[in-house]
């Protein structure tokens, strides 16, 4: 697949369809690929596409859809939702963008492999459902499904929501575990209020306010975040008190509620491993149950659930009236 994509992108450079391409470039190791902007066909030599290209490239387009020349972007199926959402919000200009939708069969979490006790990894190759892992201490194997990134565990499907052309072999494959998407949210909801509080207190108190979750998020694309704006009255930088991280994460989740495509980047990048997607998914679940199924970014012309209403909407009292566990 990597070579097919590389060849095609080079062609597009050569026939002047595009002037730049956004993809991934090789890192120091086999797993640390960096998103990169390629300016010519020759640049594409270091292009890479494999099990470790998890980053969602759609947000880079905000700064790279300038008027001169077309920018090519490689989008995995889940990334196209973010792309559509950015289109909806007029943050990017499709006229200047050329999308190649590329197939994806799930991205691998290197930390999960390490957690299996596999050390000194030098190379990983995929063999069907299995990963063959070369290490300094000999060859190891594991099931790919066991080491998928959190965000891939509730894959929305292999279908691209928007593209100019496709390089994909599994476009129509349906997600296997979509039903499990809200399992953890349910689990939390079924805890007692005290247990939930303890869970989140424990998780959120790890937050170092590095803003990685915010800055990687394609929905958090504000030119200036309220939390960075000293004139907003709520600016804060580091957590001086346990309240501040709660404030930050609640408001962040609220600001992306109805706009979050559940791309999972926030959780992927959190250096402290906070399951931030569980905040976003809570909103998604509530929106789905209360206001009807909604998937942000499915198309570029939807009206978000928070800029919409029906006269019959549920009253907020339904929360306080819920049974106390």
């Amino acid at each position: 697949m990597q070579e097919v994509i590389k060849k095609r992108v080079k062609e597009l450079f050569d026939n002047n369809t595009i002037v730049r391409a956004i993809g991934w470039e090789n890192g120091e190791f086999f797993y640390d690929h960096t998103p990169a902007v390629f300016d010519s066909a020759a640049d594409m030599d270091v292009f890479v596409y494999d099990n470790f290209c998890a980053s969602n490239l759609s947000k880079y387009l905000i700064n790279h859809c300038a008027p001169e020349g077309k920018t090519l972007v490689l989008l995995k199926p889940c990334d196209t939702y973010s792309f559509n959402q950015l289109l909806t919000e007029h943050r990017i200009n499709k006229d200047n963008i050329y999308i190649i939708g590329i197939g994806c069969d799930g991205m691998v979490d290197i930390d999960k492999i390490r957690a299996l006790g596999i050390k000194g990894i030098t190379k990983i190759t995929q063999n069907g459902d299995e990963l063959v892992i070369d290490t300094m201490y000999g060859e190891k194997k594991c099931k790919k499904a066991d080491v998928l990134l959190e965000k891939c565990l509730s894959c929305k499907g292999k279908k691209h929501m928007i593209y100019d052309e496709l390089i994909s072999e599994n476009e129509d494959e349906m997600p296997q575990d979509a039903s499990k998407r809200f399992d953890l949210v349910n689990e939390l909801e079924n805890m007692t209020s005290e247990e939930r509080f303890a869970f989140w207190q424990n998780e959120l108190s790890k937050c170092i306010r590095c803003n990685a979750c915010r800055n990687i998020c394609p929905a958090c694309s504000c030119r200036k975040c309220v939390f960075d704006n000293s004139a907003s009255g709520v600016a804060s930088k580091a957590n001086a008190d346990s309240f501040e991280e709660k404030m930050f994460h609640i408001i962040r989740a609220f600001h992306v509620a109805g706009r979050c495509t559940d791309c999972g980047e926030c959780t992927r990048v959190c250096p402290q491993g906070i399951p931030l997607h569980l905040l976003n998914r809570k909103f998604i679940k509530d929106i789905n149950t209360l206001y009807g199924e909604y998937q942000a970014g499915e198309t570029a012309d939807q009206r978000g659930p928070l800029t919409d209403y029906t006269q019959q909407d549920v009253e907020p009292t339904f929360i306080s009236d819920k049974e106390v566990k």
Partner: protein
Amino acid sequence: MQKIGVFVCWCGSNIAATVDVAEVVQAVKTQPGVAFATDYQYMCSEAGQSIIKNAIKEHDLTGIVVCSCSPRMHEATFRKTAQAAGLNPYMVEIANIREHCSWIHKDKNEATQKAIILANAAVAKVNLNAPLVQGESSVTKRALVIGGGIAGIQTALDIAEAGYEVDIVEKEPTIGGKMAQLDKTFPTLDCSACILTPKMVDVAANENITLYTYSEVEQVKGFVGNFSVTIKKKARYVKEDLCTGCGECMSKCPSKKGKDEFNCGLNNRTAINIPFAQAIPNVAYIDAEQCIKFKTGKCGLCEKTCSANAIDYNQKDEIIEREYGAIVMATGYEPIKLDKFDEYQYSKHPDVITSLELERIMNAAGPTGGTLLKMSDKEHPHSVTFIQCVGSRDISGRGKPYCSKICCMYTAKHAMLIRDKYPDVEVNVFYIDVRTPGKNFDEFYRRAVEEYGVNYIKGQVGKVYEKDGHLVVQAVDLIANKQLVLDTDMVVLATAIEPSKTARDLASMLTASIDTNDFITEAHPKLRPVESPTAGIFLSGVCQGPKDIPETVSQAGAAAAKVIGLLAKDKLLTNPCVAHSDELLCNGCSQCEKVCPYGAISYIDKEVNDHGVRETRRVAQVNEALCQGCGACTVTCPSGAMDLKGFTNRQIMAEVDAICK
């Protein structure tokens, strides 16, 4: 930092008895920004206002807080006071220490402490207030009246008489409304058509009035003084300017199966039709659903017949855009659907009719030529039974909770007319209460009972059923306290009335508030009964609440007076507490635009200088004349670019902080 003066009002003993005003004065003096504080018996009095004015001048105050009654009472007063002393009126905040404090608390210490906190919150807000200036907007000197019944007609005539242009939009092919369908009117028993049709003719003749019949309001944009309305004029397939109303086409039309709406569907009409003889405009229209030409492509008889060449099968709906300064809702009413009242057999038995149907039967132009006949066999009835409050004052949920107001009187009228014309007919009226408050109303009702021998029975009808070819009414006589089983030939249902089905959609287009029964809400039930809370929207007739004709006409005149008052102005002052977008923070995401009920937000590409970086960005712009200041947009804006003047994020948070201290 501001220099704030705080003025604590005693309101006689209303405040001072429960709140230690001196303590409040002492406490606020320590607040940041407070340069002066004092108290006085009645701040709203001349003397009180002088204290404020003098303090503003003497201490060079930049803002004031008045701790007094509700801002709904005297905010305007104190703003004027401030303005008179050279202070921007929006540098005034009121701490409501009467309604929200002294009047509801008994413990003096508790009330005093709360008053201090409320004062502190107001001070905290004023510290962040900025002077605001009211904008000006122009007034388009033309009014729109939606609905061409007696309410709309009267309003339009009055406005036109004052010299202003006025347009009427009527969804039916003719104006006249419900009143045109009535036979006689209570309590004078004069002929409805005779008093209405001259007014309809006046409308047609008035140069200031433009009629859009067979038309609907599609979209309303804008705001008081500057509404922009899209009107859809439905295709009549008859050229209005050519048709003479001669009626030849109707006599030739082979399609005769359409229900005659004017006669409540009691008889049929032709596909090409003029609703009634005095219709204004007196122009035919083609009901495309009934027309053979439209259904099969063949026929065309009317076209051949028409000597004026007025028929045009290719006519299209026409979209008209017009500007207005004021809009009057006169959308009127409909009788409710009776499908939930099966016990009366209305849908099953042709001799169970509604009162409006009876009006048509009694009318000389009606389906029976004015003769009272049973619709089942066109025979003369010997007994007629009226049932009151069908769907009115209903708490079962099947009907309406309110009293429809006109039924008692029109039933008395009907009963009296029947007894007058057909003394052989026995008339029974089942009622819950007979309500006759109105000039000559009770006298009228008593005449029905005493002079005309109408049999009034207090009690509810349990059910109506057919037996041996006639109807049986099963009821309770509450006074005699016995079950009644009554044979009768006709049953007339005094059906509840409800606002026109179009009212709710129109209200949302006009952003006029509407209540749960779909009556348009007035700005104040007592003091502003003909205005909607939305500026520039006025109410005429039953759309505001059940009314009879004289009440409707007086309200129509009142609405007209309000419209004239508005159109007479050259400029309107706008509310300065409007949304404002900081273009440096704006992402251009369009979320705010989606929730704005007034279409006040638009997006433009604009070059900005963001800390030395110059670039063109898509940014939100608020039309300050359109914005009404609800603030819905501010919460959709994640970056806080959109804020509301007078209620900024910082101001509200400052109040929160002060309260939670």
